[in-house]
C-alpha cells in the first residue's frame, strides 16, 4: 500500500511540475510579454524598463525556476490590474467556487444515485427508461443555455430565486443545478451498471437465501459495493466542475475563481490567469490522487496492478 501510494505521489508531483511549466509558458503565447504590458504608446526605453523590472530579460529557464520557487512559497506574483498579491485575491475567491462545486456535486449525487439504483432493480421498466431519457437529454443540454432557462423561469417569471450574487444560500440553488446536472447521467449510468453487476453476484444470492430483508440486502450489501467507483467518479467530476464553473459563475455573477478568471481575461491580467489555471490544476491533481489512494485502500486488487 505504501509503495503504491509513493509511486502515485511521484506521478502526481511530476504532473504538477509539467502543468506549472505549461502554465508558465502561457506568457510567451502572445509574443513579447513586456511589449504587451507596456501598451501601444510605450517607448523603447519603457519596454526595456518593464523587461528589467519583471525579469523578462533573463533566460527563460531562470525565469521559470524563480516563478516556480515563488509559487512553492505561496507567492504567485502581483496582479497587473489590481496591483495586489495574486494569491491573496485567489484565496479570497476560492471558497465560493468550492461551495458551488460542493453543492453542485451533492445535487448531482442526490439525483443520480437513487435513479441509478431504481433503474438497476427494475431494468427496462418505465423508471429505467425515464432515467435513461433524463441522461440522454442531460448530456445534450448546453449548461449556459440551461442556466438562462432556469433564470427565466425560476428567477424572472416566478421570482422564486435570486438571480445573481452570493448573499444567501438561495443564491447557490440555480448555479448548483446548472453546474451539477451535467454530471448526473454519468453517475447514474455507473450506479446502474455497478448495482446490476453486484445484484447478480453470489454473495447477494447468499444474503437473500439467508432470509435477510430485501432492504438490508439492497443498501447494506449491494449499494455499499456498487458505490465505490461512483465515489471516485464524483471526486474527478468535482475537480472538473471547479475548472468548468467559469461559465456558470459568469452568468450568475458568483464571486469565485471562475468569475475572477473571466474578469482577468477581460483585463489581460496574465499573472492572475496563470495563477488560477495553476491553482485549479493542482487542486484537481490533489483530488484525483486522494481518490486513487482511497480506491486502492478500499479495493486491494487496484494496488497489485
Amino acid at each position, binding site marked *: 500500500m505504501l509503495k503504491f501510494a509513493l509511486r502515485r505521489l511521484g*506521478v502526481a508531483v*511530476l*504532473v*504538477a511540475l*509539467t*502543468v506549472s511549466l*505549461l*502554465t508558465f509558458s*502561457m506568457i510567451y*503565447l*502572445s509574443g513579447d510579454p513586456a511589449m504587451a504590458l507596456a501598451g501601444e504608446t510605450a517607448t523603447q526605453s519603457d519596454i526595456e524598463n518593464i523587461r528589467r523590472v519583471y525579469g523578462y530579460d533573463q533566460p527563460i529557464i531562470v525565469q521559470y525556476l524563480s516563478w516556480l520557487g515563488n509559487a512553492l512559497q505561496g507567492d504567485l506574483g502581483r496582479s497587473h490590474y489590481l496591483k495586489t498579491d495574486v494569491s491573496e485575491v485567489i484565496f479570497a475567491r476560492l471558497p465560493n467556487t468550492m461551495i458551488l462545486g460542493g453543492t453542485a456535486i451533492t445535487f448531482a449525487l442526490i439525483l443520480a444515485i437513487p435513479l441509478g439504483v431504481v433503474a438497476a432493480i427494475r*431494468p*427496462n421498466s418505465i423508471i429505467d427508461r425515464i432515467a435513461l431519457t433524463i441522461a*440522454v*437529454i442531460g*448530456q*445534450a*443540454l*448546453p*449548461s*449556459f*443555455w440551461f442556466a*438562462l*432557462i432556469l*433564470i*427565466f423561469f425560476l428567477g*424572472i417569471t416566478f421570482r422564486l430565486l435570486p438571480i445573481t450574487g452570493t448573499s444567501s444560500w438561495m443564491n447557490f440553488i440555480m448555479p448548483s443545478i446548472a453546474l451539477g446536472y451535467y454530471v448526473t447521467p454519468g453517475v447514474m449510468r455507473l450506479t*446502474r*451498471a455497478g448495482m*446490476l*453487476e453486484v445484484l447478480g453476484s453470489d454473495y447477494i444470492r447468499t444474503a437473500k437465501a439467508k432470509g435477510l430483508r430485501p432492504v438490508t440486502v439492497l443498501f447494506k450489501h449491494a449499494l455499499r459495493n456498487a458505490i465505490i467507483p461512483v465515489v471516485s467518479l464524483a471526486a474527478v467530476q468535482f475537480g*472538473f466542475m*471547479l*475548472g*468548468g464553473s*467559469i*461559465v456558470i459563475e*459568469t452568468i450568475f455573477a458568483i464571486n469565485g475563481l*471562475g468569475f475572477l*478568471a*473571466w474578469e482577468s*481575461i477581460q483585463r*489581460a491580467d*496574465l499573472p492572475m*490567469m496563470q495563477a*488560477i*489555471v495553476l491553482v*485549479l*490544476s493542482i487542486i*484537481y*491533481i490533489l483530488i*484525483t490522487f486522494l481518490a486513487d489512494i482511497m480506491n486502492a485502500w478500499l479495493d486491494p486488487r487496484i494496488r497489485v496492478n
Partner: protein
Amino acid sequence: MSDTGNKKTSSVPNVTTTPEQANEPSAMSAMRRRVFGHYGIIIGGAILLLIFGMAIFAPYLTNFHPILDQDLSNKMVPPMWHDGPKVNPVHPLGTDLQGRDYLTRLVHGAQISLLIGFAAMLISGVIGTTLGVAAGYFGGRVDMVVNYLITVRLSMPVILVALAVVSLVGSSLWIVIWVLGLLIWDRFAVVMRSTTLQVRNLDYVAAAQAAGCSKFRIIMTEIMPNIANHLIVVATLEMAHAILLEAALSFLGLGVQPPAPSWGLMISEGKGMMFFDPWLVGIPGAALFALILAINLLGDGIRDVTAPENRN
C-alpha cells in the same frame, strides 16, 4: 454498455459471427434491421441530416444575408407563432437586435457549429488515436509516456485554458478550431489505448506477426479496422463536445467574433432581452440542443449496432 444484453444474446443464435450464416445478404439485412429498428439512429440521423442540409444550402434557403441585411427599423420582430402587429411572414423566426433575419442567421450558424465540431474532432482524433494506439500496441515506456501526457492534459481545465489561450493569441474561427482540437484528444487516447490492448493479443494479430508484416502494417490493417467502431463512437462524442465548447466560448465573448452568426454568440446577444423576448435565446439554444442530441443519439446507436454483445 447494456448490462442485460449479455444474457439475452447468449441464448439467441448469433447472426453475424457463426460461419455458416456469415454470408453477405443475411449479415447485411440483420445490420439493416438493427440500424432501422433503432430509434436513436433514426431520430438522430434525421435531425443531423436536417441540420447538415441547412448548413449546406444556407445561402439558398432564405432571401436575406446573415450579416449585411440589417434593418434597424425592423428589429426584434417576433417569430410567426407570436401575435402582434410586428409579426411578419417574411421573417418566420423573427429578427434580432439589429433587424437581421433570425432564420438566416440560424441556418448560417449551423455551418459554424458543424465546421468547428468536425474540424476540431478531426485534429483531436488524429492526436488522440496516434497516442492511444501507440500506447496500447507498444506498451512499456511508450504506454507510460502516453499515460503521463493524458494525466497532464486532464489536470488542466479545458474551458479555462481555451479561454486564456484564445485571449492571448487572438480569436478567429481557425484559432478556436485548433485550440479545441489540441485540447480534447484525451478521450480518443484513453479509449483507443484500451481497445488496442484488447485486440493486440488476438490470434489474427499474432498471425500477421508470424507472416512477417511490419508493425506499421499490422497497426493499419489488423488493429485499426477492428477498433474502428469504437473510434467512430468517440468521434461523435468529441464532435458534440467541441460544438458545446465553441458555443460556450462564443457565449463568453472569446470564441467566434461578431457579427458571425455563431449560435453561442446569438444566445449571448439575446440574453439581455431575455425577459421580453425569450425566443431570442430560446431558438438558437434549441438548435444547439437538437444538434448535440442528434450527434449523441447517433453515436449511442452506432455503438449499439456495431457491438454484437450489446444487441437486443
